């Protein structure tokens, strides 16, 4: 049962590998970028799950709280930064794909290699 109890880590690992597979196996550049985004999203989940404390609530101190249990806010803040990095990467990547389309007329990797070889 312990293996099932750690299901959120399984989600992390499976999602990570799906993303990685897309990056390696797909020839369409946009699909590759989707893969990278999935890959990064998996890591966000890893951070979020580790910050969860059983029975913990959002870390906001209010009046009248007796022995409050909070989830750890730090990984959440870290991942907020990492999400921003992820968005910038995707945006820049898409920008490059647009430029590739303008210059080569295609976004399929093997066709680009074909054109460059000529």
């Amino acid at each position, binding site marked *: 049962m312990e293996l099932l109890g750690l299901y959120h880590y399984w989600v992390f690992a499976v999602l990570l590998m799906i993303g*990685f597979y897309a*990056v390696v196996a797909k020839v369409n*550049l946009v699909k*590759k970028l989707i893969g*990278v985004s999935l*890959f*990064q999203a998996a*890591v966000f989940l*890893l*951070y979020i799950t*580790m910050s969860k404390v059983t029975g913990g609530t959002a870390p906001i101190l209010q009046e009248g709280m007796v022995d409050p249990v909070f989830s750890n806010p730090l*990984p959440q803040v*870290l991942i907020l*930064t*990492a999400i921003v*990095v992820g968005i*910038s*990467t995707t945006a*820049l*990547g898409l920008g*490059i*794909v647009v*430029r*590739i389309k303008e*210059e*080569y007329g295609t976004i399929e*990797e093997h066709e*680009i*290699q074909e054109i*460059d070889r000529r």
Partner: protein
Amino acid sequence: MNGMDVHLPVLQVVVPMLIAPLVILLRPPGLAWAATTTASLMAFLIAIQLTAGVLGGNEYYYELGGWSAPFGIALTVDSFSALLLLIVTGASTLALFAGKASLDAQIEAPRQPLFYSAWLLVLAGLAGILVAADAFNIFVFMEISSLASYILVAGGPDRRALPAVFKYLLMGTIGATFYLIGVGLVYMMTGTLNLADMELRIHEVADQKPILVAAGFITIGLALKAAVFPLHVWLPNAYTYAPHAVTVFLAACATKVALYVLLRFDFVVFQQNLAGHEVQFAAFLMPLAVLAILVGSTVAMFEKNLKRLLAYSSVAQIGYILLGASMVSVLGLTASLLHMFNHALAKGALFLTVMCLALRVADLNFRHLAGAARQMPWTFGALIVGGLSLIGVPGTAGFISKWYLVTAALDEGLLGIAVIAVIVLGSLMAVVYIWRIVETAWFKSPTEGAATLTEAPLPVLLVTWLVALANLWFGLAPSLSLRLSGTAAESLLQHLP
């Protein structure tokens, strides 16, 4: 330390970072370049001041906003970071000084302010990695510098840069994400992100398995960023098709900063906490280093494009740096750090001559360079000096680091003999590929275009020769680089059993 000195570590990052957005506003031609060069020069002067302080025995420790370490953000500068700061800021400044003509030719005027802004962000990011004292800030700075450097590489007129930079982006992002997973695992077990704090807390952890996994993730992720063989495939194309000034800047320092983080993590954080870590580290990286030297040099020997040849030679040189580190001895690590510095000098000089050539020759393929040395003796003279330093001829900077590498290998017994054989073989291969350039440029009969070539513009040539002469200077009087890398190696390996 007096008033201003205390703030130097943070100024190292803040100066380029704050000037970066301002540069975008500078539309008149030349102004953006002037502002960028000034900012870069300021960063270089700060790095020199920091180095002088470190050599004088100062310890730089800066708490951002006055918040103390495990909770606030801390910055530190020791001799290891000072050495790398010198390389990074120096390479940026010299590339900018020399690169104006080349960049004007390669980047359209309206896009120049944006381009220079990205340049400063790369500089700020790389400097940030070097002064940051915690793992997460290293990640953020790493991504700032990487994202900006993708822009720089893609900025040139060659469309082949675009697929190259896309590959660079994919591999760079995966590398950074691997690093992030590793940091997450360490944080999960220790509850801290501060490197010094991690080092103390890891051994309190009962189950060491996640730490071992984290060490794997961090090492692989950074090896990707550092273009360690066989994760180097993004490097040759990215360096070849980038604007020439960008290649001078990035080739001299970008991969070395990733190696800096790698060595920091493996030797400071993991070394004293994981049983047998030094053996695993050596057994994993030494074969890769040897392969990098042999494969990189072999490909360089057969390459037809001058810039690509030098890019593959960079793959091989990263191998030498790793080879020294994977001996896990003070002498080996000293050689490794020394080679970071000396390789930056040699490759800086070589890529500067490439920039000189590109201003005059349409194509950097060997057949277009035939006989060009007769018309451009000064450019090719600098290329020879850089090449000799790359080979490791006595009297040049490259010799010093290879000498230390061989001395360190002699302490390793039988394995050391094999390592020395690889070093000698790699150097001989370097002789071959440098000789191919010399043969083409001097002894082949010139093509039709070559007769009308003229020497590169004086300012570019002056900077090129400055770097070329620095190769000789640090080959004859290496006390500065030796002292820095020696103390850095000792402090990194102080926990070695």
